[in-house]
């Protein structure tokens, strides 16, 4: 009996393809769980950008329709959602908050012949994977990030005791290695007083903070991408323990939501990032201004870096389609990888041959709960 039971209704997408006039764009990102809040923000940003694109006449004369799916930060679900979107006939999938989810979806999308643009996930393997020879990623890579941290520290002092507080996974360990390599390259004579590794999900850092106090560092480098809980918790507990040494957070980990959750404990930290809506060169950029205004209008929100990456990925894809003159995966990827694309909310952007977008980093500090860009 079971197999004969028609559990599955006739799917709606099996309708006549002629009716599908809009171009479907898939977005896969966590909408629930620890990263759910940021994921929702990103999906809003993509939608704002779709509105802007459609108002300007769409892509190849057709409107863009956004289909958002929740990967629940779980690769297996991400894969299922990628399959759903493939079946729905999307032209491109914009995805990725967690690297494992991106890595799992890549091959499925590639086999289905669908262009796959990674918005945020950072793992190096994403661009190196044989599963997806046409990989494209917008968020900055660890290597790019390391240089700016080293440069910034170098500008502060040439000799210092450093403590690393590093999440113990591929991202964290890779980032620390990168930073240490940059120190060497820049000839900085730093003592790594201690490296404290912790599991990603950790939220109680009193043991680490005690060790930090003991080590009497001049600077503490935090490599903690757990924006939802871990990083704000660390900042709060660190502030409370009165350790004193300034905290430098790795690039892109301090989103406005972290500052909001950490409250006044975030004051005084240093970090760097690639996008600030109200700072030059973005503040006066007409594309960015349109985007910020649209976000304000549609979602009453000020975009952060993640949202900008989400919106930009749609925008860049749209421009590449226009350049390529078709939706063909290879052609569109060819119009992005190794190319320069002007007129995005990041200004004119350049992709290297591996599909990685190049960024300019800005160092900032937090004062009174506000981001103050330093350089």
């Amino acid at each position, binding site marked *: 009996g079971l197999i004969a039971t028609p559990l599955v209704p006739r799917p709606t997408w099996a309708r006549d393809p002629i009716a599908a006039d809009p171009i479907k764009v898939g977005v896969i990102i966590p909408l629930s*769980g620890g990263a759910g809040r940021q994921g929702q923000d990103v999906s809003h940003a993509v939608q704002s950008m779709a509105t802007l694109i459609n108002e300007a006449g769409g892509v190849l004369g057709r409107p863009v329709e956004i289909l958002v799916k929740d990967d629940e930060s779980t690769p297996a679900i991400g894969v299922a959602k990628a399959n759903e979107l493939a079946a729905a006939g999307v032209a491109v999938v914009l995805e990725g908050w967690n690297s494992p989810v991106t890595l799992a979806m890549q091959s499925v999308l590639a086999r289905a012949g669908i262009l796959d643009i990674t918005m945020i996930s950072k793992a190096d393997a994403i661009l190196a994977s044989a599963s997806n020879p046409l990989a494209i990623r917008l968020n900055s890579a660890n290597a790019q990030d390391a240089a700016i941290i080293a440069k910034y520290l170098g500008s502060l002092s040439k000799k210092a005791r450093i403590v690393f507080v590093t999440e113990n996974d591929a991202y964290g360990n890779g980032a620390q290695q990168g930073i240490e390599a940059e120190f060497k390259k820049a000839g900085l004579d730093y003592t790594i007083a201690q490296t404290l590794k912790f599991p990603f999900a950790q939220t109680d850092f009193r043991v680490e903070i005690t060790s930090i106090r003991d080590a009497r560092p001049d600077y503490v480098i935090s490599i903690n991408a757990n924006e939802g809980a871990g990083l704000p918790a660390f900042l709060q507990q660190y502030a409370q323990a009165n350790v004193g040494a300034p905290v430098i957070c790795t690039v892109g980990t301090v989103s406005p939501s972290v500052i909001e959750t950490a409250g006044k404990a975030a004051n005084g930290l240093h970090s760097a990032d690639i996008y600030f809506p109200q700072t030059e060169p973005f503040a006066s950029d007409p594309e960015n201004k349109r985007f910020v205004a649209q976000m304000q209008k549609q979602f009453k929100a000020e975009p952060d870096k993640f949202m900008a990456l989400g919106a930009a990925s749609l925008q860049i894809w749209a421009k590449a389609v226009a350049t390529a003159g078709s939706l063909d995966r290879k052609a569109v990827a060819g119009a992005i990888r190794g190319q320069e694309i002007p007129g995005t909310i990041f200004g004119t952007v350049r992709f290297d041959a591996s599909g990685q977008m190049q960024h300019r980093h800005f160092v900032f500090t937090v004062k009174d709960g506000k981001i103050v860009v330093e350089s």
Partner: protein
Amino acid sequence: MNVAQQLVNGIVIGHAYALVAVGWTLLLGAARLVNFGHGQMYMIGAFVAWWVMAATGLPYWLAVVAAVLLGAALGAVMQRLFLRLTLSQDLVNLMIVTLGFGQALEGAAGLAFGPKPQTLASPFQEMSVHLGPVWFTVQDAILVGATILVFALLYLALHRSWLGAAVRMVAEDPRLTALGGFKVSRIYMGIFAFEGAAVAFAAALVAPRTPILTSMGFDQVVMTFVVVVLGGIGSVLGSYVAGLGIGLFTALFGALVSPAYTTAAVFALLIAAMVLRPGQLAASGSFAR
């Protein structure tokens, strides 16, 4: 290494583990129920306290009371739902039903509170005490005091009154207990409500330290699991000692080796303990002994 400070850390962490575990310990000992929904109940406790403060502006301590009351109510709901399975001691199904209960709680909390991280703001979390080389927050001190109090009260209740024997009787044979003139469902009701109230109380005291998320359930209480088992299943005193021990282990292992592997080390320790004395751990409730 600042030994004194790490010991203080260990003591605080350990008491948090013990307090989070106490309800589960009793539940496991008395109803032989492994509550996989414990983490989600912790999460609900924290969120209820937060919501009371955020929505009504009541002070922290009233929010704690509210969380405890709701926790007890949640426990009571569990008892109603699980009564039949508990009476027939269908242990496999019981374990899985708690898993489902936890999922339902997490789903409901997600729908109600959304994915945004929140902060349960206790005024005592802001107050620090610096004593020579060591420091801790007033919240920490309250946590330790409250834990000792809860354990002492439970210990007395189980050892100095008929409750202890009643709990061991339902643990062994709920049906036969009825012939001793006890209303079994009421004893269960007390145990489940205690579990709910205790974990909510623990959440309200422990959660101010970190941001809270509706998805945090299992991560936050994973160590509790070890405490409950290592303490000797169902043993109140045992779980206090185990909690404290694991807390100290966490602090010292974190300071001397690496916090990254603390969880794995503790679980490996657990496996070793179970392999070395499986009979002990499988033992039925050792209340009053």
